[in-house]
């Protein structure tokens, strides 16, 4: 029994860690959807770009050029990735979302972002090549052991950063004026505009924040992923699944769903086999959509379904 308990705890920890990584990726997606009603298919590629940015910042810049310690360098790279993501967000807003905003079309921006995704992947391929880069976080070197349970400092960092981001986002949306304005825009763009809020600016802000989060997720995921230009593709569809399971545009739901998916994955690996992870996760998605399409925690919006 103790064996089983230790195993269950370990896999739960693994699942939570993995889940937090997924949450970091999915946060930005759900934010964009909540405010803009748009899906950014290039989101996962922003994560990849963030990962590469973090890699170069940590290995070439921070330690070599600035001579910082490994750990500081890594933490700095997270900030760099955040910034790079933000810039990407600005660009994609200007290039894709803003021009297409007026039509209220759901499909065209989606397709445009698919095109951007292909562009980013192949652009990075041309720049970085297909051979995996070795991005090791200095926090992953030491393993922490408590009895039979193990995890690395990296997992702690990930969970902390994820929790902090979520808390910060939450506070921003609920407590600040900008945040409240964002929520107003998401609920009713026209009325918000009538009330003196500039929707265009706020939408741009949303996309920037979302993409910055993606970049930061890349910095956290870099040491976990096999870092190639295709790294984002390995998590993108799952991230979408999480956003839906949690409820599009719903922050709490996304977090819950992300952790849930992580834990489901870990236990699937343990008892069913790692080859069918995707099968299980997406079956879960379809089941959710069949019985509760609005997600784990429903937002009170009529036009969701």
């Amino acid at each position, binding site marked *: 029994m103790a064996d089983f308990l230790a195993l269950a705890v370990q896999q739960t920890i693994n699942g939570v860690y993995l889940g937090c990584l997924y949450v970091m990726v999915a946060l930005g997606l759900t934010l964009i959807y909540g405010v803009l009603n748009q899906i950014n298919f290039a989101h996962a590629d922003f994560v990849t770009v963030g990962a590469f940015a973090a890699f170069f910042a940590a290995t070439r810049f921070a330690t070599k050029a600035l001579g910082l310690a490994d750990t500081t360098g890594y933490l700095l790279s997270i900030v760099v990735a955040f910034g790079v993501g933000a810039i990407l967000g600005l660009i994609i807003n200007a290039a894709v979302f803003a021009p297409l905003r007026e039509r209220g079309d*759901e499909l065209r921006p989606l*397709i445009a972002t698919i095109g951007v995704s*292909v*562009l980013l992947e192949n652009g990075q391929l041309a720049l970085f090549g297909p051979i995996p880069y070795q991005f090791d976080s200095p926090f992953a070197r030491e393993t922490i052991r408590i009895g039979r349970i193990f995890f690395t400092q990296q997992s702690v960092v990930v969970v902390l950063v994820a929790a902090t981001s979520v808390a910060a986002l939450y506070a921003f949306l609920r407590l600040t004026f900008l945040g409240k304005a964002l929520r107003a825009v998401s609920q009713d763009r026209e009325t918000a505009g009538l009330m003196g809020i500039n929707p265009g600016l706020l939408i741009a802000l949303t996309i920037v924040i979302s993409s910055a989060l993606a970049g930061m997720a890349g910095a956290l995921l870099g040491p976990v992923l096999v870092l190639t230009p295709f790294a984002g593709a390995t998590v993108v569809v799952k991230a979408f699944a999480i956003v839906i399971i949690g409820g599009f545009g719903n922050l709490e739901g996304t977090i819950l769903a992300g952790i849930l998916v992580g834990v489901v994955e870990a236990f699937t690996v343990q008892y069913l086999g790692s*080859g069918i992870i995707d099968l299980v996760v*997406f079956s879960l998605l379809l089941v959710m959509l069949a019985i509760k399409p609005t997600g784990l925690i429903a937002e009170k919006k009529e036009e*969701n379904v």
Partner: protein
Amino acid sequence: MIVLALLPLVLQTPYWRGILIICAMNVLLALSLNLVLGYTGQLNLGQSAFFAIGAYVSTILIKTNGWNFWLASAVAVVAAGVLGLALAAFAVRLRGHYLAIASLGFAVITYQVLVNWERVTEGVRGIYGILPPPGFGSQIALFYLVGGIALAVYFLLDNVVRSPIGETLRAIREDEVSAASLGINAARWKAFAFGLGAAIAGLAGCFYPGFVGTLVPEAFNIVESFTMLAMVIVGGMGTMIGPVIGAVVLTFLPELLRGIGELRLLVYGLALTLVVLFMPGGIVQAWSALWRKRS
């Protein structure tokens, strides 16, 4: 039409004739997606699943059970259609992006089943030595077969679209709520569109393994759905000729770009993005705009 028929004689080499066959298949696929997406307005990103079902069901019946090609294909088409109805069940309750992701999930699940159900599908090992339909071994013959079927489907869909059914579908696309107030049973017609679209995609799938000779699940991963989507959009969604043009362009373009090697996909992505941003109605719209300007 005549030019089309004579093409295999102009393009004499096995390579280009092969591309023609692929083009015909892509036309079928684009037409099938267009029915669901362009005319009924359903955001379906999972069309690759039905393509896969057509390919696998027909191949398994032929190889493992010794069925005749035509019978096996008929069953495969029906199977694809039934699966389409299953997806329609989701479409009835979901809209917009929810449907998009649900259909994507559908496609992923289908792919995963093909990969994991090794006893039946051989999984990643693949099925080899698949023959083209008996009597159609030569590439010219195969092209005429698939091309002919594509043509027939085109006319069939054209008629459907021009008929009251087409109006119903368009009504659903424009505004489902109002359509319901007009007494339209959206659920039934969505099922129709999905089922028919899936069946046609499955039909295309029946010819795929015979042409390549090899069947692996990787050929049906979700990227294929995006390619089909691109064909419909680039050609001109919601028109009949649009998907055909899109299929032709997006089949030949990567081949013609082979000269530039590594940058091929980069150009592809750029083209797709630019078309969507600046030519929303696709090539069809651009062409008629040009036409109008001249007259």
